[in-house]
């Protein structure tokens, strides 16, 4: 108990500490590089680096555009497109596709952005869906669940949802129109996003997870601690053989506790 109790406590402390940072994970082999903001939060103003653009030239073969993808050079935004996604120019020229972080964009109208707004444009019309993947910059909120799009600077933002995406710290969605894109949270009572940032939005969950972690670790530790104790006992007995005859023949007071022979 003396050794398993701290084990349970340490597991609970870990769960609480890891819960405070999205995505609820502590170490990671390759943690994300700092997000490059167009308009950094005040605390990141000194360390922020400007986000970069991405440009791709899409070849046209046999009258249709080829498949491929384009990333911004800092890999914060990407567009993946299958073949025949863009209208092929009549003269057989290639198509250019550009992703650019922009400082001005349509009013969010309640949407809570979790990163930069990117303007995706192409030299010809989009004719079939492409996938937009955006890395989000916020580390303290739950991951944003969707991407919002606005077709032009005067259009309103609309959610285009999200698709299954295995790349951590990113959200991906399929779109049939180009324009402005941002990863973020839908207009909702502000308390939702703010409170889940600290885990307070789900009060029953965190204590349960912490308790489960503590119980799991203690249960896993008990056999190892017990085996260790069994290994210690013979060593202790060897160090302290019980006295064969009374030691206190002279009537002197016994010491308060036994001392091992050295």
């Amino acid at each position, binding site marked *: 108990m003396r050794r398993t109790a701290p084990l349970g406590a340490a597991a609970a402390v870990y769960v609480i500490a890891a819960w405070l940072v999205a995505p609820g994970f*502590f170490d990671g082999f390759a943690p994300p590089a700092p997000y490059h903001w167009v308009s950094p939060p005040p605390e990141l103003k000194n360390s922020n680096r400007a986000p970069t653009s991405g440009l791709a030239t899409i070849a046209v073969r046999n009258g249709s555009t080829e498949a491929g993808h384009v990333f911004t050079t800092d890999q914060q935004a990407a567009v993946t497109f299958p073949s025949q996604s863009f209208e092929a120019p009549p003269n057989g020229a290639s198509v250019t596709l550009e992703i650019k972080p922009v400082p001005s964009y349509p009013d969010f109208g309640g949407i809570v952005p979790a990163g930069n707004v990117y303007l995706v444009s192409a030299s010809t019309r989009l004719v079939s869906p492409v996938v937009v993947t955006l890395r989000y910059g916020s580390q303290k909120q739950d991951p944003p669940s969707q991407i919002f799009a606005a077709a032009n600077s005067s259009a309103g933002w609309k959610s285009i949802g999200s698709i299954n995406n295995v790349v951590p710290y990113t959200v991906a969605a399929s779109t049939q129109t180009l324009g402005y894109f941002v990863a973020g949270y839908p207009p909702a009572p502000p308390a939702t996003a703010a409170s889940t940032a600290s885990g307070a939005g789900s009060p029953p969950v965190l204590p349960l997870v912490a308790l489960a972690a503590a119980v799991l670790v203690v249960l896993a530790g008990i056999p190892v601690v017990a085996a260790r104790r069994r290994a210690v006992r013979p060593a202790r007995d060897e160090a302290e053989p019980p006295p064969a005859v009374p030691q206190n023949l002279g009537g002197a007071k016994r010491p308060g506790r036994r001392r091992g022979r050295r």
Partner: protein
Amino acid sequence: MQPPHIDSPPERLGVQSAAARATAIGVLALCLEWARAMAARQHEIALVSLVVGGVALGALGLGFTAHQLGLTRSRLAFRLLGGLVLGAVLLLPSAVRGSPLPLIPAPFAVAAVGVSVGEEIAFRGALFAAIESWLGPGAAILGSSLVFAAGHLLSHPPQFLLAVTAMGLLLAVWRWACGDLVAPIVAHCIADLAL
């Protein structure tokens, strides 16, 4: 009365030499972690730097016996099982919150295992044993956790460091309570493979 600590160094070093050894291991581990983190920023040498860094960290355990490092083979099944449970607990917050946990590409997976093993031998193995022989188990738990967190200063965003410290604390408490480094190694590998 405290039970004797069978995994502590059998020989009692002088206070000065114990302090010198713990300090040297701590400084070396920090330098190796920082150098590894800086080298890994260069894309061309990222993989090599991770593997070399992991091996170098593991080399810090060379002056210790397997017993001192908690790497004996007794009750190995229980310790491996403990590692699986610890690994599950490390991923638990992320899993409950529904965050994606993709596996990393194969070459980086090998490097991840190398780094995880190296870090455990350096921090919960050599550094823990060195501090324990100098100042006792409490200081070993706290000291190894703090140095482990400091080692991640260059590779992790600041807001992750509290969780990194807590992770170091959990694995160090296991190391103290169970006298075992096998489970922390297994757990660390699982966690790092899940990115």
